[in-house]
């Protein structure tokens, strides 16, 4: 009898330890980045361009580039994703067409990020002659985050109670108006918080923009969507691996990592907090 409870204790300890280890891994990484990066962060660091062949100055063009790429990607992927999700949850019946779309979304979600980069290079950069630029990069990132946004939107739409739809339809309101006026506004906060998590993913990806948008250094800020840009993740990668001044730029690397992590996790954290707040407030 005792043996059974001893075994249980051993198992529970292992389970608790593994959860603790994961928490500590994230905590350790974040603490390490903050401790090493915080001294580099200053107003100049985030508002000035790099100088002296990247060894001094700030990272403003990279911050701006990442914002452009992310905003571009979301501007394309959010409407497309929400409409797809509405079709799948509100209109679609079972059938081969739906099964095809679902399989497509699942497979797209599993495509490696570097393959998205190859696709962007082959399609947008070469075939459509966009060249390496913001537009190519943003469209490539949009393809990458689309499954995330569809998933989040679907979940939000499914959580709208069926009675809302029935009440609206019973009043003689058409299906489209029911979706537009009742279902969508109810699901909107959920769609947005879920999509924010997709935004974080777009902002932090490196491989898809390596061949489609990112430049190691641009003398000027981008003037149009057909210009190359610097981007935070690519900046980190290049400074840490390919530069001729890997050791001299170490502090800039830490600073850039901190800015990127701050942006991505900051946005994620806001989404997670809003979501848990909303779940508690929900009255249905």
């Amino acid at each position, binding site marked *: 009898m005792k043996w059974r409870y001893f075994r*249980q204790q051993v*198992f*529970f300890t292992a*389970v*608790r330890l*593994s*959860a603790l280890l*994961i*928490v500590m*891994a*994230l905590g350790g*990484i974040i603490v*390490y980045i903050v401790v090493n990066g915080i001294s580099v962060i200053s107003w100049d660091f985030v508002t000035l361009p790099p100088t002296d062949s990247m060894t001094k100055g700030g990272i403003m063009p990279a911050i701006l580039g990442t914002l452009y790429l992310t905003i571009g990607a979301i501007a394309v992927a959010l409407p497309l994703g929400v*409409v*797809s999700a509405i*079709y799948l949850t509100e*209109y679609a019946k079972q059938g081969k*067409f739906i099964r*095809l*779309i679902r399989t*497509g979304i*699942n*497979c797209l*979600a*599993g*495509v*490696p*990020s*570097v*393959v998205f*980069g*190859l*696709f962007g*290079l*082959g399609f947008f950069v*070469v*075939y459509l002659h966009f060249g390496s630029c913001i537009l190519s990069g943003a469209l490539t990132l949009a*393809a990458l985050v*689309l499954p995330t946004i*569809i998933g989040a939107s679907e979940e939000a739409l499914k959580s709208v109670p069926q009675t809302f739809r029935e009440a609206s339809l019973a009043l003689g309101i*058409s299906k*489209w108006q029911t979706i537009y006026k009742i279902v969508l506004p109810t699901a909107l906060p959920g769609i947005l918080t879920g999509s924010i998590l997709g935004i974080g*993913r777009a*902002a*932090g990806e*490196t*491989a898809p923009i390596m061949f489609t948008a990112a430049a190691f250094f641009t003398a000027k800020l981008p003037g149009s969507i057909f210009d190359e840009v610097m981007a935070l993740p690519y900046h*980190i*990668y290049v400074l*840490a*691996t390919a530069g001729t001044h890997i050791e001299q730029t*170490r502090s800039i690397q830490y600073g850039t*990592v901190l800015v990127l*992590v701050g942006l*991505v*996790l900051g946005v*994620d*954290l806001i989404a*997670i907090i809003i979501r*848990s707040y909303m779940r508690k407030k929900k009255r249905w």
Partner: protein
Amino acid sequence: MSRHLKETLIKGIFAVFAFASVLILALIVIFLFREGIPLFKEVSAMDFIFGKEWYPTYDPPSYGIWPLIIGSVIVTLFSCLLAVPLGVLSAVYISEIAPASIKDIVKSIIELLAGLPSVVLGFFGMVVVAPFLQETFDLPTGLNIVNASVILAIMAIPTISSISEDALYAVPREFKEASYALGATKYETIVKVIVPAALSGISTAVILGMARAIGETMVVLMVAGGAAAIPESIFDSVRPMPASIAAEMGEAPFGGGHYNALFATGIVLFFMTLIFNIIADYISQRFKETGSATL
């Protein structure tokens, strides 16, 4: 416009938009092949996949990606050794053991871990794990299989944990109650009832976690060391497929054999992850939990 016509029209437009994902997937396949297929005029598919020498810039070049495939498979398998137990056990913790207040926090933390950009983890592997390995084991370089596997495991854990947790959560309550009623301890209930009932979901989680690890680029690019040779020890450097594509695309002349070979590597990588995803999809469809009646 009649109301009915308008409704049909809207539905049609939505269907077209929803089809975008399938279209993108098709375009990915088309353009991988468009840029990759010309390679096979130079080398046969067998020589490409099983060739042991990857010297794309030599004259004459040799395009054999077997060492790259081995590199990918090895780091993926080793990362699973770490990620599967940690991911599944943490899922058990969240769904079965954790008090409600801690549960939400741990879930959020795992979600944040999933949000960490891969380049940041790669950087962490370079500046923290690599020097540590180098000093502890007295190695020429800390950028090797062990390092890449550890960092990849950190990337795969959130995927495995969150999908496993969904599967555990979906196990019907009656199973648990029946088990307790028979006098089983909580441990026995978890290990002999709940986990077996959720096994298909957990398998899906593991496969998707592996797919994530095999396709991950920045980590293996930054910390695997980059040697395109078949490794002999776990402290050897490797050059997994995604690392090779990302590192060499910048220097490969456009439209040349090297360029085509990198796209062809992309084809192999794409289909490897596709197979993982299809298996996962199949398992989750085939063994879908629809209630206690299915068992």
